């Protein structure tokens, strides 16, 4: 029975599980979280990533680089209509083309299902780009030529692209239940909305829209698959080897033991490379059909069109405030554009949006209405900080507008509504560094110099703005790690993760080095292969890799160390309790002259000594019950607006982030800077521009799409880590990858307003929108 304790938060008593007991490891190993002021040797320091060397020499191999003997190249024929039945499909010309090895379509592979409503190869396509047929050939060129030789006759059906149009009666009905996902909006409510609004002194209502941001990973989506002797091996551009392996086994009805997924290096994911897509299954099927390894990658156009994107959202926020700024009620509605099929994309379209509105500010009376709408487009997906980013881009502009109306400083309004409790479940947070983030950001930035309005005339106006940052933590799903110690003293951490490149390897090495107390150079990390690694994480999404895997690694290292001490006791011929270890030397407490260094002890391991290797096992336990993990921060920017061109340039940014204990401050800074710049891109430039008639993306290339370049970034991007002492797990970590995206929109839009007095509630804030608004204002 877990030990419970009572804590008082904001004057109320909560019964929660005691962390020290809850985090006790296997065999009773005590692994309480590190202490607040504990001196740590490796954790919390700057260490370059171990794998960076291979990347700067060009040796690092990505799935895109995999070339196998006899490998064939595959291309997919995709639908050119947004809703159509296939009347006829003629593949014989393609099959006859020299160099073509296989052509698959619903005619010869119709039984391979994709999900509950569709096959991998469709005979009724619902969006431009749906998979119709695939070709494997000796070269990509031949495969491409062959795809063009396939003739399709369509019966074209009505389709709908615009989200509002899709909601109107009489719109083409895309699903049996209609165009709103599962038939009706999803509503969350607490308190009494009418009473809340009645109690308000000021009521404000505004509508915001956010655009379809694309992940735009530099490495395109795809894999190399080889089906050989009943075993499927896939080199995949993936965020998680275990999830891809599990889903491929499921879709292809193979035992898990017959599928192996590898990922040594990943060229960007940002949420778009979790799990499997049709191309994985197609590559596997083509390999089974030809007996050869198959390389199937989407090209850049297909990636923009099909690999998923952040949904377009229309968000209406109505809120009531007391004169002092206290929120009395929020009524929030989000319409999100989904795809044609009933898949997980519909969750990302709207139900995932809105948690900051529900959680970030104390508000007893609230209603959130999420309306995910089907259209004849590809499905949206999780895009770095999914849901929270879209929501905060709106909510944080709204709070700025409210602050002005209430004549309050934007930070003062936010502080007035601060809460240390996760309202949907009435659970206190393990930690909430929001106040500290505001304070530190304001100090570093010089927020007190902010004037309510820019007084500068002329064409270059400067303004400053801020936004809160919010991301939801997780409950601590099952996660395992192994730590092996070899005879030469090498420590190997074995984790089942892909390699996103944000530094999990060095972080896990730091944690093991810390726990065992060995130099970092002696620790290597094995990863990236679903065969032979434990289940550390299914896929690296949700900013969980360190938060999930780190505690398991620490526990495995502690287990290994305990075994090492037993071995040292044997070596020194003293009882285990008499052994102490410091600075690489084991010694008997009772007889300090009895000692052995690290390698003398590990030298007793291995077959030559007739001993097993030493393997420490660790698993992550769930967070102690009764409390919630959330991640917070504050971002501040200064912008310069050119009123002649409409250009908005961010001059500097201060990013204060509470993610628990920073493990590696170098990779930490890089993550935060990179995330913020993705947010800046979404705020100012990025959107999938679709042809209103067909839904084809018109800017499906890097040149026109608008990812930020080195010329678009602020001169200064200062990262301020806010270290909260979080007790949800034994390494005090909360997660960092996604939160940095979430604050950029609000901060930039608010700074634009501060500079010019115009509000742009429709992201991205393009020069033409700024110019239009400026003209309308005079």
């Amino acid at each position: 029975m877990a030990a419970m304790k009572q804590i008082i938060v904001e004057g109320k008593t909560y019964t929660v599980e005691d962390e020290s007991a809850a985090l006790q490891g296997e065999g009773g190993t005590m692994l309480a979280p590190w202490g607040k002021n504990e001196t740590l040797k490796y954790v919390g320091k700057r260490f370059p990533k171990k794998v960076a060397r291979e990347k700067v020499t060009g040796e690092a191999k990505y799935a895109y680089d995999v070339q196998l003997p006899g490998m064939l190249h595959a291309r997919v024929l995709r639908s050119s209509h947004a809703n159509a039945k296939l009347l006829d499909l003629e593949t014989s010309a393609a099959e006859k083309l020299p160099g073509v090895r296989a052509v698959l379509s619903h005619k010869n592979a119709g039984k391979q299902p994709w999900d509950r409503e569709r096959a991998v190869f469709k005979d009724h396509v619902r969006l431009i780009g749906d998979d119709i047929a695939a070709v494997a050939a000796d070269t990509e060129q031949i495969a491409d030529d062959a795809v063009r030789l396939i003739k399709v006759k369509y019966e074209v059906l009505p389709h709908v692209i615009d989200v509002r149009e899709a909601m109107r009666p009489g719109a083409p009905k895309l699903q049996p239940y209609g165009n709103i996902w599962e038939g009706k909006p999803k509503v969350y409510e607490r308190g009494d909305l009418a009473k809340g609004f009645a109690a308000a002194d000021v009521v404000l209502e505004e509508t915001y829209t956010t655009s379809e941001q694309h992940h735009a990973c530099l490495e395109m989506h795809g894999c190399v698959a080889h089906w050989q002797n009943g075993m499927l091996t896939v080199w995949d551009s993936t965020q998680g080897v275990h999830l891809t392996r599990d889903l491929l086994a499921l879709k292809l009805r193979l035992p898990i033991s017959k599928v192996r997924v590898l990922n040594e290096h990943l060229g960007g994911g940002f949420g778009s490379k979790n799990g499997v897509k049709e191309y994985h299954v197609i590559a596997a099927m083509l390999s089974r059909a030809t007996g050869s390894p198959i390389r199937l990658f989407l090209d850049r156009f297909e990636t923009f069109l099909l690999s998923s994107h952040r949904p377009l959202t229309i968000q209406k926020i109505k809120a009531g405030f007391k004169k002092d700024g206290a929120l009395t009620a929020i009524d929030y509605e989000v319409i999100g554009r989904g795809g044609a099929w009933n898949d997980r994309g519909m969750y990302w379209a709207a139900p995932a949006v809105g948690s900051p509105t529900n959680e970030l500010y104390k508000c007893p009376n609230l209603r959130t209405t999420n309306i995910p709408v089907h259209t004849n487009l590809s499905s949206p997906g999780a895009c770095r900080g999914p849901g929270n980013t879209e929501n905060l881009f709106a909510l944080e502009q709204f709070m700025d507008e409210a602050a002005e109306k209430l004549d309050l400083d934007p930070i003062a309004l936010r502080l007035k509504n601060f809460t240390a409790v996760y309202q949907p479940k009435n659970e206190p947070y393990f930690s909430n560094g929001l106040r500290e983030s505001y304070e530190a950001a304001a100090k570093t930035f010089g927020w007190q110099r902010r004037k309510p309005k820019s007084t500068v005339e002329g064409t270059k106006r400067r303004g400053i703005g801020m936004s809160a940052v919010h991301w939801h933590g997780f409950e601590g799903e099952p996660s395992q790690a192994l730590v092996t110690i070899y005879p030469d003293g090498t420590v190997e951490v074995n984790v089942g993760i892909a390699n996103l490149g944000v530094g999990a390897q060095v972080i896990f090495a730091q944690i093991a080095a810390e726990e065992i107390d060995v130099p970092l150079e002696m620790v290597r990390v094995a990863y990236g292969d679903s065969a032979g690694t434990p289940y550390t994480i299914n896929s690296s999404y949700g900013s969980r890799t360190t938060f999930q895997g780190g505690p398991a690694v620490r526990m495995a290292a502690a287990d290994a160390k305990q075994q090492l001490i037993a071995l040292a006791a044997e070596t020194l011929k003293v009882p285990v309790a008499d052994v102490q270890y410091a600075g690489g030397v084991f010694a008997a407490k009772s007889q300090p002259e009895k000692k052995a260094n690290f390698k003398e002890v590990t030298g007793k391991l291995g077959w030559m000594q007739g001993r097993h290797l030493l393997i420490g096992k660790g698993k992550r336990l769930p967070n102690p019950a009764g409390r919630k993990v959330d991640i917070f921060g504050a971002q501040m920017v200064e912008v310069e607006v050119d009123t002649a061109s409409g250009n908005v340039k961010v001059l500097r940014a201060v990013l204060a982030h509470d993610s628990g204990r920073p493990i590696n401050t170098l990779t930490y800074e890089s993550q935060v800077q990179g995330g913020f710049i993705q947010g800046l891109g979404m705020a100012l430039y990025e959107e999938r521009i679709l042809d209103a008639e067909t839904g084809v993306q018109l800017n499906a290339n890097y040149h026109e799409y608008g990812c930020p370049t080195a010329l678009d970034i602020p001169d200064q991007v200062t990262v301020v880590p806010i270290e909260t002492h979080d007790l949800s797990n034994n390494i005090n970590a909360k997660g960092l990858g996604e939160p940095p995206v979430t604050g950029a929109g609000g901060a930039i839009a608010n700074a634009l307003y501060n500079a010019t007095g115009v509000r742009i509630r429709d992201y991205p804030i393009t020069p033409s929108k700024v110019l239009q608004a400026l003209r309308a204002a005079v």
Partner: protein
Amino acid sequence: MITITLNVNGATHKVNVRPGESLLSALRLGLGLTGAKEGCGEGDCGACTVIIDGRTVDSCIYPAGEAQGKKVRTVEGLASNGKLSPLQEAFVEHGAVQCGFCIPGMLMSATALLERNPKPSEAAIRLGLSGNLCRCTGYAKIVEAVRAAASPA
């Protein structure tokens, strides 16, 4: 197929190419040099950047045949005898690398920049890297690494 001769990182190679095949494809498929990356194949991202006779080129849209008789340098040629170039070293030390897919191209652009202009201003560094997209790092540490590798002012 046509056989052409390429001089890559100081060594001469014979390689078979299709008419119109890109230099990037010849390097990656023909010579197995996968350091130069393909991020778009359309000349937009710079991941495929190599240096030809001192100038940076998007090798994905540069015909392999055009490179005959010229000196091609790729990321594989930056380190010598296992020793990283100062620029490569700076990228590692300054944490300029995340996923790393843009890095080979970034390094080639930065190498060409520093060869042209050993003491570039901040603006010159940014301009010099502006043809290379990075989706991960937000460029700050990349710019910092280039600044650090530039000869001391």
